[in-house]
């Protein structure tokens, strides 16, 4: 009996060790990037363009580019995602078509990001003649994020109690009126939280935008949707592996990594807090 207890204590200790190992890895990542990137970040670094063959200066064009391409992504991915989720949660019955749609959505979220990049090259860059541009890259990222947006929106719609729908329908409202007045307003913040999380992931993607619009270096900011752009993740890739004097620009690469990481952590944290508060409100 004592031996049994002993084995259990040791085993649970090992399991706990696994969990703390993950915590340690995350802290190590954050520490390494924050300690070496922190000294690089200044107001100039955030607001100026790269200078002297990208060995000096800041990352302003990359920040703007990432912001713009994420906006294009949002315009595509959020409406389509919400519409699809409304169909799946409010209208769809358990038919073969519904099952195929759900299977496709789950499978799409596992398609490698570079494959989306290839798809974007064929469809948007070449077939639709958008060229390598903000538009092509944004559309490609829009397709990539679509499965996440649909799933997140559906989760949000599911949290609306069935009685809300029944009440409206019993008063004679049509299906669409019910959705518009009694379902969407109560799931809206949940939908937006999920969508923003998806966009944060899109903002960090590199492979899909490498061949559809992101540029190594540009002397000016993009003026239209047809222009190429610089982006934070691609800029980090360039600074880490493609630059002609990699060791010299290492601090700049660290700075870029820190900005990218902070951007994504802040969005994640914001979404997490919002979700936590929403859950609390629902409980009360």
């Amino acid at each position, binding site marked *: 009996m004592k031996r*049994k207890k002993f084995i259990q204590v040791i085993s649970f200790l090992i399991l706990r060790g696994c*969990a703390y190992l993950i915590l340690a890895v995350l802290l190590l990542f954050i520490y*390494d990037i924050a300690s070496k990137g922190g000294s690089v970040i200044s107001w100039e670094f955030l607001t100026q363009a790269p200078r002297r063959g990208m060995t000096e200066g800041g990352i302003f064009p990359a920040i703007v580019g990432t912001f713009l391409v994420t906006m294009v992504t949002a315009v595509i991915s959020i409406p389509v995602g919400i519409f699809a989720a409304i169909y799946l949660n409010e209208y769809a019955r358990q038919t073969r078509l519904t099952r195929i749609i759900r299977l*496709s959505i789950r499978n799409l979220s596992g398609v490698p990001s570079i494959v989306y990049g290839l798809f974007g090259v064929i*469809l948007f860059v070449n077939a639709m003649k958008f060229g390598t541009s903000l538009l092509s890259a944004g559309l490609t990222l829009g397709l990539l994020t679509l499965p996440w947006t649909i799933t997140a929106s559906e989760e949000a719609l599911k949290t609306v109690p069935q009685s809300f729908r029944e009440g409206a329908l019993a008063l004679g409202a049509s299906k669409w009126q019910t959705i518009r007045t009694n379902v969407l307003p109560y799931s809206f913040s949940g939908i937006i939280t999920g969508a923003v999380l998806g966009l944060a992931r899109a903002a960090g993607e590199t492979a899909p935008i490498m061949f559809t619009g992101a540029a190594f270096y540009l002397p000016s900011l993009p003026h239209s949707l047809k222009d190429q752009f610089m982006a934070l993740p691609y800029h980090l890739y360039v600074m*880490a*592996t493609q630059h002609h004097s990699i060791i010299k620009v290492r601090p700049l*690469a660290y700075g870029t990594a820190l900005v990218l990481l902070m951007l994504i952590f802040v969005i994640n944290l914001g979404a997490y807090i919002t979700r936590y508060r929403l859950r609390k409100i629902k409980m009360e």
Partner: protein
Amino acid sequence: MKILKKKRITRFKEALIQTFFMTNATLAVMILVGIFILLAWSAIPAFKEINFVKFMTGVNWDPTSPVKEEYGILSMVVSTFMVTFGALVIAIPIGIGVAAYLSDVAHPRTREIIKPVIELLAGIPSVVVGFLGIVLFGPLIAHLFHLPNGLNALNGSVLLAIMALPTIISISEDSLKAVPRSYQEASLALGASRWETLVRIKIPAALSGIIASIMLGMGRAIGETMTVLMATGNAPAFPHGFLSSIRTMTATIAIELGEVPYYTTHYYALFGVGLVLFIITFLVNLSADLILHRYQEREQ
């Protein structure tokens, strides 16, 4: 009459709205099918010049050779599977361990800390992970194994393990939690310890979900681009071991698509690589999905 007419208009409008939503939902199916068709359509011209069997089984990939161009993808396919295998060897025990810890051992307050940590880890962009492979794990591996540099398959495996862990943990934890409470209570009542119950009852009962989680993690590792591109050294040769530099399918596409002239055999061949990659990940994800789904239906 007027009311009847209004009712008819409303009904028509409602049908229209429903069709609109349905179209948006079917878009997901069209994208998936579209990816397959467009990739295949772009890869087919390559096989006018390249023998298909040689493409699949050739070891040498040298599309820019001045003497004789060679298009064999076997080396990069083997590299992809090798680095994925290494990642799973690391990620499976740790992943199941953490999942078991979260579902059976951890205090609720500890869970509230570990869960967001895992979500944050999943949120780190792959290019940042790749960068850490260069600046953090690379020098470490070089030092440990006395190598000139640490950019090799082992480095890639470690990074991919870290990236596959969140998937493995969250889905394994869900399936451990889905094991009916009565199983656990029966086992404890018969005198088994909590550890014995976990290993002999709960993990076997949740096994299909755990396997599915591993396959999803595997799909993610196979398709991951930036980390392996940055951290595995880019040597387009047949891999000799975990300490040799390799180049995966994804890395080959990422490196060469930017430089290749459009509409050449080389260009089409890269889409051929993309098609093979897509089919592999599609099958892995589909199998995982079928396992998870059959399991869920049985539960209901």
